[in-house]
């Protein structure tokens, strides 16, 4: 058990330093922009620490349902998140091969693949850019 500040609190402290202390002192607009990008990257890391494991679980279950009869699907619920990520990677590669081969061109499988791909992208944006996600979904997408 580590002392406080927690990893989240440390990240927040660095982001605050970049945004409020460093960026205003930089006269080179390029460096200033990079300081703001750096702060934004830390916000992504912070959201991933908070939501990442749960979203990985969700994606793994969804992929298993989608690819259940695919040899790449390894049904081992409750494995540690790191293994889940590896399994997601293997199953997603298999899915991509099937899409490119035209196996998801139509029928129910197409709809299921489309829904899965869309949900996965939404979950990535919940971490990478929730503001953008909200704006675009609001737009009727």
């Amino acid at each position, binding site marked *: 058990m580590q002392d406080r500040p927690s990893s989240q609190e440390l990240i927040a402290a660095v982001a605050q330093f970049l945004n409020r202390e460093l960026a205003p002192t930089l006269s080179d607009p390029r460096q200033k922009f990079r300081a703001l990008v750096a702060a934004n990257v830390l916000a992504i890391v912070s959201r991933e620490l908070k939501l990442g494991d749960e979203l990985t679980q969700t994606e793994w279950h969804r992929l298993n349902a989608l690819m259940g009869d695919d040899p790449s699907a390894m049904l081992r619920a409750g494995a540690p998140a790191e293994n889940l990520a590896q399994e997601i*990677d293997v199953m997603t590669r298999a899915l991509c091969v099937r899409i490119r081969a035209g196996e998801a061109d139509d029928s129910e499988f197409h709809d299921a693949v489309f829904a899965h791909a869309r949900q996965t992208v939404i979950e990535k944006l919940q971490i990478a850019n929730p503001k953008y996600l909200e*704006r675009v979904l609001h737009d009727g997408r």
Partner: protein
Amino acid sequence: MSVSPIELELVLQEKLRALTQSEVRVENLQILAGGASQEMWRLDLHVAANEPDGDYKLVLRRQLGGKIYRDALDVWREFHVMQVAYASNVAVPYPQAFLPDLLGRPAALVHFHPGETIGRRLVREPAFENARKKLPGQMGEMLARIHQIDFVKHALLNELPHPPPRTERSPQRSLPAQENETRARNESESLAVRAFVPYQTPAQWILAQLENNLDEIGEPHPALELGIRWLRLHEPAPPEKLALIHGDYRIGNVIVNADGLVKVLDWEFAHIGDPYEDLAWSQVRDWRFGSDHLRFGGVSQPDEFFDAYGTAMNLQVDRARVHYWEVMGNARWAVGMLNQAQRHLRGEEPNLEFASLGRRCAEVELEILGLIKGVG
């Protein structure tokens, strides 16, 4: 990583002294927000031998490590395309000089023009209200000038990326026979045999590049694969004529002042292809800079842009084709973002902005799914 201004100034002075055979002074060297594959500097040059007209306001573009797309032009070929465009009455900064080796990398000097290039400012700031009214018409008319450049006459066909002959692995459609013959006839004589070889269509050519590129990156992206698959299944008839494509024609890559369009920049993605590629690129959501409801670059609805282009080209812009190429543009940009992240990850060009683009790919993937949902 960029070089130090002091070092650059000294070396640049030395090179330009040799080139102009005159005393020269390089001043006010200042780094600018860069392009995708190049580092950009603003500078003033004084050439003693040319007095009283020896003062030049210039921009230096210097090659960076790695490229966003394999087919991106190096600085020399981009310089040559700008020369051709300049000679063809396209509003492009005058390409002043090419330096084959500036601190180990090629570089080009072009004229500087005051004005705004930052997309976010152009779509928002009240100062550009008049410019926003004029840009769609001006950019449509200017794009027609680019597409009317005789790329064969200017010997650009062999210099620029273009759809290759069909191979066993690229079946389906080919270009119209007449087009193939014209193209082959005008290529160098040693390639005349190509008159009988069908060419890949521009769309198939780009899709094959995107698939290969994705395989090289090695990350699975189902949403992007769905987009590419949709593009494979919905390809329109091939274009009647190929054109010189700018390849990055949008708000953000043009200099704008209160009266609208000043100059067209960033020619590093120029190639030979389908004119609709350029027509659709400015509609891609990421190039609307947050003003999403205005489909032409966050500036306006696209009607005036298409009308101006259509009038100048004497044709009617086909909206279904624009939609197809808008999906293509998004797919290409999604892969471009992954490539930029790879350039950082592979250590070719360590850069925080490039790294962060890897996490922005999902934005474009969501857009692709939205565009292809329920269409065709």
